[in-house]
């Protein structure tokens, strides 16, 4: 996969150079943005609630046993804001949206639609790539904010109703407020912004370089998702290290 890194970076650079075209392409950015929201909001909601819940379930009883019940809110809050919401949402979006981008652009490449754009002197980076990368770069951080809130709520619900914990909402959120700073949430959101750029660029690149027929499209979709996830996990470590101060 890494032999394409250069090409992917070049595509990203070209997209940056295309940024002045944003106003012209705004309609497509909106369309893509709402498509992403539509396609993933419910899933984000369900997934985040259960992630919050399972984190509370995993750490809560152990903390309560050591009479640290008051720390549960902070642990769950931090884990979700800094790590789980950004990474899990990025992986979800890679699977849900990255795959769709690779499939759509890939089929356009295979059926010569991209060539047709070129003959009309329409730059595929302006027309196809820029709106998608911008849309996902706005949408994913927003989804992550949403996911953090729902995840906290899920954690609080489980901490409250699980008999091994029985932590009141008030206590849970008071501790969460004590420990989690705005900066922690901002860190997570910033990471998700970087992940969004990775998903968008990798998926669009994979789509544009699709060759062959339907099987080629299938291969591109798989590669787009797998490569995005691998890069997300690697960059997650690097970014976390970088933001650690």
């Amino acid at each position, binding site marked *: 996969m890494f032999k394409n890194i250069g090409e992917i970076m070049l595509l990203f650079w070209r997209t940056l150079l295309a940024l002045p075209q944003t106003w012209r392409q705004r309609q497509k950015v909106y369309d893509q943005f709402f498509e992403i929201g539509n396609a993933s909001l419910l899933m984000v909601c369900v997934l985040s609630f259960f992630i919050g819940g399972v984190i509370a379930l995993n750490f809560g009883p152990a903390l309560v046993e050591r009479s640290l019940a008051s720390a549960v809110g902070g642990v769950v809050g931090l884990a979700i804001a800094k790590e789980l919401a950004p990474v899990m949402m990025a992986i979800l979006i890679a699977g849900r949206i990255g795959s769709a981008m690779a499939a759509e652009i890939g089929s356009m490449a295979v059926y*010569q639609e991209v060539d047709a754009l070129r003959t*009309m002197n329409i730059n595929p980076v302006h027309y196809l790539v820029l709106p998608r990368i911008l849309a996902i770069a706005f949408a994913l951080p927003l989804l992550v904010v949403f996911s953090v809130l729902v995840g906290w709520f899920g954690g609080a619900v489980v901490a409250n109703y699980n008999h091994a914990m029985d932590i009141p909402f008030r206590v849970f959120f008071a501790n969460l407020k004590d420990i989690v700073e705005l900066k922690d949430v901002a860190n997570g959101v910033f990471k998700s912004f970087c992940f969004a750029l990775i998903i968008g660029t990798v998926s669009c690149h994979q789509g544009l370089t699709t060759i062959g027929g339907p099987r080629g499209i299938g291969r591109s979709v798989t590669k787009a998702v797998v490569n995005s996830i691998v890069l997300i996990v690697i960059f997650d470590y690097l970014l976390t290290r970088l933001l650690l101060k």
Partner: protein
Amino acid sequence: MNRSRPSTQGVDLIVRGLRKSFVGQEVLKGIDFAVRPGEIFVIMGPSGSGKSVLLKHLIGLETPDAGEILVNGDHISKPETAAKYRMALVFQSGALLNSLTVGENVGLYLAEHQLKSPEEIERIVGEKLADVGLNDVLHKMPSELSGGMKKRAAIARALVIDPQLILYDEPTSELDPVSAVVIGNEILDLQRRIGVTSIVVSHDRDLAFGVADRIAVIGEGRILTIGTPEEVKNFQDPLVQSFLNADFHREK
């Protein structure tokens, strides 16, 4: 009909020593020809002889392994050339954008480059679709059209560009004889009206001999002969003759 049209001048095109291989298979083995401004140049040749590959080179979609292509003296490989001249390719498959309606496809060039107001684009799109004999398809999706209708919509999309050079890949291959004649006449009409340079790839002998100023026959990656329809018809080469005179044998 009295339509105001910007007068365009066809460009000339020179191809020298063009070679191209795909993974070990040499498809074009040194192609040389020159097309004069405003000429209708037909390229014929058997299936798989590299005609579509040649057209893609002419418009800069493929980069040659060797040789050069000049449009009015400018190398097609330079990015400025694509912006300087209006060139259009009608793909063999049509290559309409499947996510857009037919109307949006045909108006795409004008809309993306913001050359006209939306109302004017709508008018032009309707006019060009009528030119190729398509009515009531404006709001249909390409998947709802037949093969021949897609081809005609693709031709309309090329006409909208108001091209100086237009390349047709098998413009009549999926059309009934009447529609084929409509397209053939449109090719002639376009040349007469705006002096566009046309390169037509076709197996359709009626179309080729009906519209061509000159014909090139290619086979196995080389040009076998170039000349006026008369010269080509009389060219004594077994490959050319067998291609031009292929016919069915039916026991009486």
